[in-house]
């Protein structure tokens, strides 16, 4: 009897201890990471880690805990612990293995998030490629830098099958030539711009005029609309409205741009260098900014990613919705499940930005949709981009149920706004008369920055932002 116990039970006991050790290691790492994250907001990195173990940590951890508990109870039922007596060398070995495992796991989970990871284990990044431009550009930039606001010089000849703009829309060269930027125009030439003479009254001929009118009006449906910020420059005009209906709060910035270059993207192609929206906005001297698609995390193996006329990723588009902002100021959204996306055709049609997240909020005719290419329909903090006509766009920020922070990250208490569902957002965009609208990264990523203010949560780091500069 005694021999049977000694032979039979230790196997279960060893298994139980292995599970217990793994659970302890994973949990300890998680706790450390959680504490660090409290100060650094880098939780995103665990989630998007390429490692199988960390990616599905939230499944593994309860499973391991379950197995640990079960095996210990099983061993107990067999009366196994009565004979438990580990020799010193065995104990030391177990402790050493635990330390090595904990260290290795700590590296995989935490190191990259905080920049300690010495190895590159992600897929090979594609080198950004400058695309052909329609409009004469300013000084060329060799690399896409987050602060860069200038359109790069094309390194590739203009495709022959590319569409051409109407002569009055831009100051484009008469015929596309392989060297369109041989003679850059340093002097600020008057640009008839994307809007032509439209909305002339919103711009300023002299110095930019900034104001915070805080004038409110009540709309028909009871929504209180407050004009909280305006900017009138030579090529950029912004009107930022805050809307409140009951507990629901959202902000819409009406953007009037005479040049598409004023709609600039700031990004970090390396996910490990992601920042908060405020950092991006301040770094780019943004008048106003929103988070965008966080492509470094959300479009790793799929999607056509173009920023500021630079092609960053050229992968097949199969599942998400693609949004393209063209150099002529037009915007078009594609459903990659239905539309057979030809990346080369898009690349040849003078794109300036493209985003791979979505979903697209309006149909092709600008009508509200009921069904979306997303399963995340519920009310949520949201960020979206709207398009009325070339040169007239909108940034949309919706405050959600999460806590709201001020510019310094200090909590201002729990926001009561429920957020908007995709259907509600779609109806709102259609009601405002937008022709196209596209949903960006929401939830904890959602935020709108202007004039040293932050609307929304944006507790997470994000890889990119869409900003307006002048």
């Amino acid at each position, binding site marked *: 009897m005694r021999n049977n116990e000694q032979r039979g039970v230790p196997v279960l006991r060893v298994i139980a*201890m292995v599970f217990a050790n793994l659970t302890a290691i994973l*949990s300890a790492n998680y706790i450390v990471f959680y504490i660090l994250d409290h100060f650094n907001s880098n939780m995103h990195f665990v989630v998007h880690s390429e490692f199988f173990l960390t990616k599905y940590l*939230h499944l593994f951890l*309860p499973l391991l805990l*379950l197995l*640990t*508990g079960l095996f210990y109870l099983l061993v107990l039922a067999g009366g196994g*612990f009565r004979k438990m007596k580990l020799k010193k060398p065995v104990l030391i070995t177990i402790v050493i293995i635990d330390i090595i495992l904990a260290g290795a796991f700590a590296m995989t989970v935490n190191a990259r998030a905080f920049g300690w990871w010495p190895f590159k284990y992600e897929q090979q990044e594609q080198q950004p490629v400058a695309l052909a431009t329609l409009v004469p550009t300013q000084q060329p930039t060799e690399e896409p830098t987050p602060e860069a606001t200038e359109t790069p010089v094309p390194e590739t000849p203009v495709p022959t099958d590319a569409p051409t703009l109407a002569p009055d829309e831009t100051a484009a060269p008469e015929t596309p030539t392989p060297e369109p930027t041989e003679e850059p125009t340093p002097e600020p030439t008057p640009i008839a711009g994307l809007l032509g003479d439209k909305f002339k009254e919103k711009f300023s001929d002299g110095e930019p005029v900034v104001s915070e009118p805080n004038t409110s009006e009540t709309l028909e449906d009871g929504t209180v609309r407050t004009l909280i910020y305006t900017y009138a420059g030579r090529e950029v005009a912004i009107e930022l409205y805050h809307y409140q209906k009951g507990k629901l709060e959202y902000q819409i910035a009406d953007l009037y741009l005479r040049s598409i270059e004023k709609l600039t993207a700031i990004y970090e192609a390396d996910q490990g260098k992601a920042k908060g929206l405020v950092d991006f906005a301040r770094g780019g001297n943004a008048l106003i900014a929103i988070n965008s698609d966080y492509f470094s995390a959300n479009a790793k193996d799929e999607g056509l990613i173009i920023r500021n006329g630079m092609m960053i990723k050229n992968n097949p588009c199969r599942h998400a919705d693609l949004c393209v902002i063209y150099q002529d100021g037009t915007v078009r959204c594609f459903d990659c499940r239905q539309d057979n996306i030809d990346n080369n055709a898009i690349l040849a049609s003078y794109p300036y930005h493209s985003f791979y997240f979505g979903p697209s909020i309006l149909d092709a005719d600008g009508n509200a949709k009921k069904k979306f290419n997303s399963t995340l329909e519920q009310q*949520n903090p949201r960020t979206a981009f709207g398009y009325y006509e070339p040169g007239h766009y909108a940034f949309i920020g919706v405050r959600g149920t999460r806590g709201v922070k001020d510019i310094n990250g200090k909590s201002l208490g729990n926001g009561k706004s429920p957020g908007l569902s995709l259907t509600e957002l779609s109806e709102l965009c259609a009601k405002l008369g937008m022709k196209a609208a596209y949903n960006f990264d929401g939830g904890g990523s959602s935020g709108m920055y202007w004039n040293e203010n932050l609307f929304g949560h944006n507790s997470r780091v994000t890889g990119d932002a869409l900003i307006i500069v002048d």
Partner: protein
Amino acid sequence: MKKKKTLITVTGVIAVVTAIIYLVLLLLFETETLPYDQTETLLLVPGYFLLPLPLVGFFASVLLQIFSVIPTKKRSGKKK
């Protein structure tokens, strides 16, 4: 011996129950029976919900190991 058995039983049951609760919640979040934050698709559950699991996991697993190696009282009269 009885005390040790009780401690292991209680800790083990807490571990199992916590794990089951989390697995059920994961299932509910994943099937969208319960709503969760939009961008945490891979995370499966909202951030604030996560901490109790590793806390219980850590303490339960450590305690189970400690309890299991506590030497039991030598029986009186037992000789080597």
